């Protein structure tokens, strides 16, 4: 049995039950297909739980796979990058695509200790690529943001 099994099984049960409650609000005819899927999900999940418990019963060991999966995990770096991405999405909504992208790329690369020259080249290359492919070729109106829109 693996340590992560508890979490995986619980999350899958939560998803299945969440969908079940929402399904019960649907008209009868629309309930059948989602109910088939939810039943299948809960059934397979229960099978997995039984298999995990059976494995625990036979060797009385819980393998710490979570520690293995996050063996090389660097919390500060990961959370820093995640915060930069979330900030980027929020900033894009306000400041538009190009400005927020430039700020994000410079900020995230400085955070990851990239040399200034490499940062400058990367920002120029990515901006030029996006402008050429998405703006000029695909004519995608990229977000201009609340201030510049």
């Amino acid at each position, binding site marked *: 049995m693996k340590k992560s099994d508890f979490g995986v099984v619980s999350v899958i049960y939560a998803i299945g039950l969440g*969908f079940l409650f929402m399904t019960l609000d649907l008209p009868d005819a629309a309930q059948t297909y989602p109910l088939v899927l939810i039943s299948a999900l809960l059934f*397979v999940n229960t099978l997995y739980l039984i298999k995990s418990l059976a494995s625990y019963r036979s060797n009385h060991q819980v393998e710490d796979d979570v520690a293995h999966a996050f063996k090389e995990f660097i919390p500060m770096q990961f959370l820093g990058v995640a915060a930069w991405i979330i900030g980027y999405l929020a900033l894009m909504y306000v400041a538009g695509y190009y400005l927020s992208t430039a700020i994000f790329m410079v900020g*995230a*690369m400085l955070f990851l200790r*990239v040399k200034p020259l490499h940062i400058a080249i990367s920002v120029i290359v990515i901006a030029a690529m996006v402008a050429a492919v998405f703006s000029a070729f*695909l004519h*995608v109106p990229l977000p201009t943001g609340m201030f510049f829109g």
Partner: protein
Amino acid sequence: MLETLGLMGAGFIHALSPMNLLAMVASTALGITIGCLPGLSAAMGVALLLPVTFGMDPATGLIVLGGIYCGAIFGGSISAILIHTPGTPASAATAIEGYQLTLKGQAAKALSVACYASFCGGLLSCISLYFFSPLLAELAMQFKSPEYFWLSIFGLTIIAGVSSRSILKGLMSGILGLLISTIGMDPMEGVERFMFGQSTLYNGVNTTCALIGLFSMSQVFILAEKKIIERAKAAKFKMQYGLSRQEIKRLMPTITRSWLIGNILGILPGAGATIACFMGYNEARRFSKHKEEFGTGSIEGVAGSEAANNAVTGGSLIPTLTLGIPGESVTAVLMGGLIIHGLQPGPELFSTYAPMTYTFFAGFVLVQFAMLGIGLWGSKVFAQISRLSDSILIPSIVVLCVVGSYAIHNNFVEVIIMFIFGVIGYLVRKFDLNAAAIVLGLILGPIGENGLRRSLYLSDGDPMILFSTPLCWMLIILCVVGIFSPIIMGRFEKRMLDKNS
């Protein structure tokens, strides 16, 4: 027959248009770039570039995706040979002999052999693509609603089982994908299902957003969690553009064997390029007259592995295009691209959309030539690119993920959906669930749902209609085989790895 030959010819004429040629060269170069960067996969590249193809003609769009696919599979060999780090898992076996050749100062020869072997493997795989696809598509013409239902189940069982360490976790992932595919308007009753008040979800979760999130955004989190280390310096070399007659004579049997191996494994859903490269390498060693060279740098080892993994590309497109069963994550993403371009895998691709399909096939053939040329003449550049640091890749991939998901409908909500799928993809990979099965569930969900509900509608709710034809039973048997195939494949792969370790 004559009609097919005519379509094949017309396909080549269309594929040779300047726009298609440009798309081919650019996408292959991009694919090689993605492939040679350790940590980036072919599936990720195809997912990331999917939105770029929206503005293109479907055939051109598919050629672009094919170019990225083939380029990425080949590109992995460059970093495998030069810095002993396979760019993709499909080049893991290439690193064994390729790097030994580099240490002996024969990097140029190793790269050149890898180029020619990949070219031959890929080109020969196109033969089966041309000949088996229409045959399988003809079989698919007999499918009706019950068969389509079982086909979607088969697709899920095969991918759920094969690419997961646990069959049950793979199945869970597949069913989760099916459940996510129910988000949006009910196709028969016309009521809103699980939309959380978001009108963007009216047509369901956008498959491209899900693909970009699951394969590309999740990779950002994977790269960001580890210590960023400088990659080894690539060895200096002077490229060798040709092979001697003696070398060709020595390599041809290996390449032919590996082509057969790769092609068969490609057609079999679930096997894939990683198993093929090890099998190709193993058979090259078994049949070699120079066994003593293996382990110290053998060109046959490089050719065996590279011809096999590239031969998978054409083969794997056969079940994807004809039956809608992608055997691995990259073909699942490719199939997503096909559907996004308004094309449904199946017999229609060889009747109504035959000109487009044959243009794509011809493009796929020409992509192999582009791959050879770019591989031979651009190896030095790719050798430098393969050293690109993850700290530059992380923000660059994020920017491309964001612009790609926004470009689909110019909708910011879809960027958020992509991000959510990125987080899901990261957790899925961390806890051994299966992203490819989720995607396949998402893609096959509507096909399966329509098949099931139409069947029940036609039979007044009698489920026995699902067991009423021999084809249904054949597909049910295949589903059972699909569930058990991972056990066999797993043992087989383990044996291969043990042999080569």
